[in-house]
């Protein structure tokens, strides 16, 4: 298993390099520059700026410089917010995104798993149909619709919760409730459908029949034999789920005006703040690769049939 992890990590390094290279050259070869402000800069000033940030060097050397910066965790200052370094921007946005994303994932698992199990146990009866209808709604009603409507109802009409804005100092339950709920709805739907279909299959399988034939009480059949097998596909869903949460967080952060990293990314990309954009891409790509690896390893630990050769 150690060898397997090592090999996966070795594969991840060229993958990361590829991602970094694609993103880097795509941004740089494109027309437009961070110094295209409303007022045209004098050519001398522009040249000085370019030299200061190293943009006058050949592109390949800039790439090497960037890699060096990445390894030493020093990507220099942001091109737009001159008084902030890239690390500071990431450092202030990332915690917000992580808190929102993780809470949403926990909420989604906490609600989605029981719903899926109930639906599977009551297959083709009223509770099953109700739960699957709810799940369908969760998949069909996108966060860019749910977010504004929730904030309209609970924030504006009822006035129970703050609609937007969140200072880093006060990440409180009321400010985070709406974003987290919005983000988790689609995941609840997907998780409950996933759990239902795998649980349906497991409940029909031979080892469950054997357990029942042995005369085990139903509760033990479910908790000892069926549950573990039914939840296995969920583990490998962790990677895609994380990616989904990241994508979703861009919308949620925009709707609720959260100073998270997703919102940062969009504004930075629009302003061509190269170092910030690159940092976010690298961070998330690394995160997704890491989570996929962890999910695969966890799968191996939980499923004795899987061996790492």
């Amino acid at each position, binding site marked *: 298993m150690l060898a397997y992890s090592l090999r996966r990590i070795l594969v991840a390094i060229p*993958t990361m390099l*590829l*991602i970094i290279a*694609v*993103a880097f050259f*795509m*941004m740089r070869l*494109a*027309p*437009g520059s961070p110094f295209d402000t409303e007022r045209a800069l004098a050519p001398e000033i522009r040249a000085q700026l370019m030299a200061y940030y190293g943009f006058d060097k050949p592109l390949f050397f800039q790439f090497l410089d960037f890699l060096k910066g990445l390894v030493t965790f020093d990507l220099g200052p942001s091109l737009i917010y001159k008084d902030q370094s890239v690390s500071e921007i990431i450092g202030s946005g990332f915690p917000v995104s992580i808190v929102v994303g993780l809470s949403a994932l926990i909420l989604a698992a906490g609600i989605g798993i029981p719903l899926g199990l109930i639906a599977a146990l009551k297959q*083709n009866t009223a509770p099953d149909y109700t739960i699957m209808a709810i799940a*369908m709604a969760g*998949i*069909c*009603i*996108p966060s*860019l*619709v749910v*977010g*504004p*409507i929730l904030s*309209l109802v609970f924030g*504006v009409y009822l006035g129970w919760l703050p609609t937007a804005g969140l200072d880093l100092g006060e990440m409180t339950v009321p400010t985070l409730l709406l974003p987290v709920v919005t983000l988790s709805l689609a995941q609840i739907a997907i998780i409950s459908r996933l759990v239902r*279909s795998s649980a*349906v*299959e497991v409940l029909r399988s031979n080892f469950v029949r054997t357990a029942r034939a042995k005369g085990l009480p139903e509760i033990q059949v479910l908790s000892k034999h069926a549950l573990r097998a039914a939840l296995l596909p969920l583990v490998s869903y962790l990677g895609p789920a994380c*990616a989904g949460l*990241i*994508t979703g967080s*861009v*919308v949620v952060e*925009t*709707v609720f005006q959260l100073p998270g990293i997703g919102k940062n*990314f*969009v504004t930075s*990309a*629009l302003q*061509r703040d190269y170092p910030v*954009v690159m940092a*976010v*891409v690298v961070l*998330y*790509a690394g995160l*997704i*690769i890491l989570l*996929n690896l962890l999910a695969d390893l966890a799968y191996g630990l939980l499923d004795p049939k899987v061996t790492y050769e």
Partner: protein
Amino acid sequence: MTLLAMPGENAALLNAAVAGRSLWDDARRRLFRNKAAVASMFILGLLTFVAIFGPLVWMHKFDTIYNDRVMIAPTLENWHIFGTDPQGRDLFVRLLLGLRMSLAVGLVATGVSLLIGVLWGATAGYIGGQVDQVMMRIVDVLYALPFIFFVIILMVIFGRNLILIFVAIGAVEWLTMARIVRGQTISLRKKEFVEAAEAAGVSSTGIVTRHIVPNVLGPVVVYVTLTIPAVILTESFLSFLGLGVQEPMTSLGNLISIGAREMEIAPWLLIFPAATMMITLFCFNFIGDGLRDAIDPKDR
């Protein structure tokens, strides 16, 4: 004993048996018994028809600005049945236009993903061996990319080019398609009924058209119906961030983002586009689920 008859006769017999009630006949029967799917097909057909022809006959044009009627609530006066937007344009006709755009993006981008995915997956599955290994490894690597970021970067760089939106989203969505097609191709090559057909002397064209294609087609059709709503979502998500379709053209996501901005004073600007989008997505998903149950009724 017919089994000992000539291979040709046997094949003819097999064909006759299949012609009696084919896989697709069965699937169609099951699909049309699914009320949600049938209703969805009807509603979606209606929506598509209105979205295509509605703007041609409606009394307001999508880019006509009425300076004296900015953000008025839905009213029968002047036939602004869904009200007007912040620029004073009729919301109903813009909604139809947005729906048309979203449907177009959904279909074209799904077509792109279908083309790449089927070719890639079928090639990998059919050739197998080292080629398969390399091709699927590439898919694995691409899966790890935070794609939405790349789409955003593309949009920012090349401007909000419509064709680019189609291609970029299609290029993102083909991965799962490739995996499905490859898996199907590989498993089918070893299936007993393919061996049986081979043994019975059915020609390879016959095997491909009668056995391989229909069996690959099933999951592909299902996945296509589920990809279309996913693509519509991605596009609306880009438009929501201001990176999608550009004014005066519009899409559902674009309308929703305007609605979200103005919802406190003009809730109809959010409600109508949001409802349209949800109905469209519901229809596609119901049809997709119905198709899946019809073609592969294992889960029910």
